[in-house]
């Protein structure tokens, strides 16, 4: 009787220790570094349309706008004040061209972290076909700040 009692206590203790150890082995420490979403955008630093005169169109320039960040972005263009560069037109298909001031492009982020997001090809031309060059100040080397702004969408 005494032996059976001690044997049952011993078996119970073993079972209890197995249960405790098995429950301890399930503890897993999970680590992760959560990064802050960021806007990262790539575009040409300058666009040169070469030589052009009133009544004509410039050659077409193709540029690439890339979303390299971890957030969907929207590209817009700041107000163009210069009379000549107000004639700048864009197209996403190289067929129908619209005024650059109307540009509003959405570039999606990449589905996989670390990879490049959406890239949009943009065809640009300086359309001076309807512009009359009456002012002598219109001639010569011209440059204007047309800024492609990338903002969170």
């Amino acid at each position, binding site marked *: 009787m005494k032996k059976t009692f001690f044997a049952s206590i011993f078996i119970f203790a073993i079972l209890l220790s197995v249960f405790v150890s098995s429950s301890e082995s399930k503890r897993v420490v999970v680590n992760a570094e959560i990064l802050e979403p960021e806007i*990262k*955008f790539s575009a040409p630093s300058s666009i040169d349309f070469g030589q052009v005169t009133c009544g004509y169109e410039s050659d077409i320039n193709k540029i690439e706008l890339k979303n390299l960040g971890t957030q969907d972005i929207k590209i817009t263009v700041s107000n163009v004040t210069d009379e000549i560069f107000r004639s700048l037109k864009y197209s996403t298909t190289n067929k129908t061209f619209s005024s650059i001031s109307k540009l509003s492009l959405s570039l999606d982020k990449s589905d996989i972290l670390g990879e490049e997001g959406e890239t949009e090809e943009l065809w640009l031309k300086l359309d001076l076909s309807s512009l009359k060059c009456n002012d002598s100040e219109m001639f010569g080397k011209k440059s204007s700040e*047309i800024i492609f702004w990338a903002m969170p969408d």
Partner: protein
Amino acid sequence: MKYLIVIIAFFISFPIISALELGISPIELKFEGNAGEKICKNYTLFVEDFSGFLIGETKWAKIGEIKKDLKIHTLNAESLGITLEYQKNINLHEKTSFEICILCKTSGNYHGALLYQAEGTNLGVGNWIILKINENNLKSNLQSNSKIAMLNNKKIKSSFNFLILSPTIFLFFVFILLFKLKRKEKQDFYSAEDY
């Protein structure tokens, strides 16, 4: 040799368009505080394939107009009574953190954009500024004090009611006790008479 010169001339005739990368984080800067209080937050800027200055500016929408559309952000901070402290000209070479501090005198909800343009390029990035300014601390303190006073008044009223009710309840229990005692005395008296 002739072919090599032709090839080199062919490549030189193409305009070299170098692409640069520009970035900012976080995507939103949320400020919340009281009128006249200076609130600061950090942001990070990064560039690649660019050496030069980044020119910073902020643009704001009309007060209460909250929309993520850069075209409606036409106002300057000064015109809205917003004072800003941040680095406007940055000679950036690597990923760097900066601080922007805002002080606004008038309460309301403001929406702005912090914009950085790479100097001499056609590229700019920005993030949104969400600014929530509550009424002046003194005013809100007065309001909260009056609210506390009202709550205290309610507490006093309820404790006053309890004070009025408590003797009544006490007397009620005393009365029941006395009644029970008298009944027991009567029962004892009759049982003694029976003997």
